[in-house]
């Protein structure tokens, strides 16, 4: 639930600076706080994405995951804290400069230009990231990697399905690999088959050396691909550590610790005839804290 009553933050080695001799993290967020005007969204968030690594950023909606990705990519200023990309401080730099420094943010929802065709979307990105001369070659490579884009190159971005739009966004970053890709709820609203293709694309991008920060609300897929996870709750970090521990943390946030515990000791309970979960308070608040 809230940080005060919730689980402790595990795995100290995830916090702060890397140990001596280890490479500079691709993305290093320290003490980040952010707000939309008076609407505070993040409170002292810290985590790292190791070079070439994959980190999952999860939590329910409203927890601040998208805010993290926006501050990291420069769309939103941070009111406190720092963001380092490959060791370089990019905090509060204009978004286009952060992008040029090696950041690629695949935004939530429709992350493509609806009024431009698939090819124009790609050209816009390639011209900037790869340079004018490399545009043609980059287009070829993009269509090779994702044939379904090639089939739709003259179609307007707005007419693509949700999955196709995500693939278009991925094509941009596969062909010209940045240092870090922040993928914001990339599987939202996608059918399982499309989600497979998208995650496969992410995997390929990671194999090319790019670090990934994958922001998701649904945890199943991302925890398969990510080695580490950060769980956000109401703007603060509720868990930071290996993916294996993340599921528990998230379960707790949904107020089902009793159920998890109850299931774990179902045999004993059944023998005693108790109703599982009876240890919870009147509204089922986890941690069993007293009355309001």
């Amino acid at each position, binding site marked *: 639930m809230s940080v005060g009553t919730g689980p402790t933050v595990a795995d100290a080695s995830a916090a702060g600076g890397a140990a001596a001799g280890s490479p500079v993290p691709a993305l290093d967020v320290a003490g980040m706080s952010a707000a939309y*005007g008076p*609407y505070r969204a993040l409170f002292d968030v810290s985590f790292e994405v190791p070079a070439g690594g994959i980190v999952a950023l999860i939590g329910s909606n409203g927890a601040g995951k998208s805010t993290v990705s926006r501050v990291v*990519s420069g*769309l939103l200023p*941070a009111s406190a804290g720092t963001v380092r990309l490959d060791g370089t401080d990019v905090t509060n730099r204009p978004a286009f400069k952060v*992008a040029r420094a090696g950041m690629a943010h695949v935004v939530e929802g429709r992350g493509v*230009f609806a009024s431009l065709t698939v090819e124009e979307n790609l*050209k*816009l990105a390639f011209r900037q990231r790869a340079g004018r001369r490399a545009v043609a070659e980059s287009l070829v490579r993009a269509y090779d990697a994702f044939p379904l884009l090639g089939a739709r190159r003259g179609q307007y971005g707005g007419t693509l399905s949700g999955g196709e739009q995500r693939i278009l966004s991925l094509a941009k970053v596969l062909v010209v690999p940045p240092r870090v890709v922040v993928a914001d709820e990339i599987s939202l609203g996608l059918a399982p088959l499309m989600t497979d293709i998208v995650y496969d694309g992410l995997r390929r991008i990671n194999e090319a050396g790019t670090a990934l920060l994958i922001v998701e609300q649904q945890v199943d897929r991302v925890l398969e691909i990510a080695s580490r996870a950060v769980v956000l709750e109401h703007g603060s970090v509720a868990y930071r550590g290996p993916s294996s521990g993340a599921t528990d943390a998230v379960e707790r946030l949904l107020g089902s610790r009793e159920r998890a515990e109850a299931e774990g000791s179902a045999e004993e309970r059944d023998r005693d005839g108790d109703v599982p979960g009876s240890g919870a308070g009147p509204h089922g608040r986890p941690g069993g804290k007293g009355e309001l």
Partner: protein
Amino acid sequence: MEHFLGFAIPGIPYGCTYALVAVGLVLTYQATGVLNFAYGAQAYLSAFVFTYLVQNEHLPVALAFVLSVVVLAPAVGLIFDRLLFRKIAAANVIAKLVTGISMLVGIPAVLAILFTNNNQYNPPSILFNPGVVYFRVAGAPINGIAVTAVVATAVTLVALLVLIRWTSLGLKMRGAVESRRLIELDGISGGRVVASAWAVSGLIAGLAGVLLAPAYGQLQFSDYADLMVAAFAAAAWAVLRSLPVAVLVGVLMGVTVNILQGYLPVGSIWSSAALTSLPFVVLVGALVLVPGMRTLGGAKDPLASVDPPTPPTTATLRAPELDRVIRILWYVLLVVFSVSMLTWMPKIWENVFNAGLAYSVVFLSITLITGMGGQLSLCQATLAGVGAFMAAQLASHLGLNLLIGGLVGAAAAALVAVVLAFASVRLRGLGLALMTIAAALVFDNTVFAEVDTVNGQPINVTSRWVGLGILNPDGRAFFVLALVVLAACVILVLRVRRGSIGRFLAAMQGSSTAASGIGVNLTWMHVLVFGLSGAVAGIGGTLLSINQQSVNPQLFSWSFSLVFVVVVVTTGVRTPEGAIQAGFGYVVLQQLLTYVPSRLGGNSLLIVFFAFGALTYVAHPEGILEFQKRRWTLRFERLLLRGRTTPAPPGPDGGTPAWASGPAVGG
């Protein structure tokens, strides 16, 4: 058929003049998010400089063209972007409008000052000789101007389409138009793209200005301004989106006007007056009928939610102690002023202050509609004129005393305002401003031009109309009348402001969503405040006519509406105080400028002063004058009452005020 074509065909080049300007407006709006009211001034600027360089400095035409169109025009566009519009939040529609209008009004005034010899005749043509008839189509002669207009429009349209569809810059512009944030994520600087768009738009404005100049025997700013507003009509029908549609509508307007002109009886009311106002009627039509107009000026960027909520465009409230001090000062001033006017005031200044009283009433109407209603109305001078004209009609035809007629006139003006309010009930901000400007121009070209004037000459107000010795030059009766009327209007405004209606209006301005959510009927409020504003404007108009002793249509033209707005915004649009300061400031400064050698520009200097004053609206929506007053009064108070702490704005909450000044908390 030949006959029909004989009218229709020459309409095409005429329509192209609209189209050429409309295309530039659409491009600017699309690429920058600003409906650029200053466009006409940019066109005029280039045309003026071009003509000046050729005629006064004797530069070769080609060189003058390059300097005025290729160098100056884009530079002006870039200046607009960097110094003015970039500072304004996307959602702050009124600030964008006020800034555009300041430039529209200010630039020609600056030119008038810098180049005292500002009457340029017969501007040179760079393409086709205006006087020569190049060929005939269906018997209609097509001269140089016509060819220029058509060629220029065609070339510009094609060039822009190529730019937008085929070039890399065009691609970036299209992306930036859809979402400036998304394009930044691709590593492209949104700011740079917008700057380029302003440069291109400026170039087209300059080009249009220079190419169209030879059509006007005398180079006057008003022609460009009229043309620009008419072009708004074409742009509006294109929903400010489609270049080809803008061109098409522009051409159609020209053709229609020409055809109607050909077929309607010559000399009837319709043929001249109604036709010159046709484009503005088309504009009104677009605003009412085209669905896209309702969301004009609204943010379309899907990533716009990243922006923090706009801090309220209202200023800090005055501390109550300050209020008390200022009120006392006003009462003292009132007494001193009245006594002086009744006794020792020299004649010249007596006239000036009397005019000031009349103008103050008109400006009070702006306090009502803009300060309290939160809407920018660009037809307040028109409403004043409606009042004045109605009263004059009643006096001259029915012998009704002008003072009573004035009240009827006020009702008439209120009625006009109410009709406008209903027509614009779904429009806000930009759409409403356009509607009012269109209404102003329609009136200018019809009612004010035709009714009981001889060739637009003013109607004289005779003492027979007014009675009560008010027009007696040696008496003080007018002063008493004006003071009483102003006082009554001030009391009306104050009572409304402090009463329920004022609170409902303040709620609407603060958040129209929440206002309707608590049960405020927004439509009714909208109509009510417009009606009140119209009534007050009407009274002011009549008063002004009595003061000037004539009902002069010039005085109520749409350009004065713009000037009035710019003046009141500078002095303070939210309070009756600001209106009075505006009224007196306007006339006193005019008088003072007569003492200055006319070399320095007289009236134009006045306009420049207020126009640039209005630019501060973005930072100080309460009025730069009001801001300075508070600053100095606070300092003064602190000096007088040393040791006593002044009330600090951050409230008892302790935490950061929800809307701390500046964008986001960390920004």
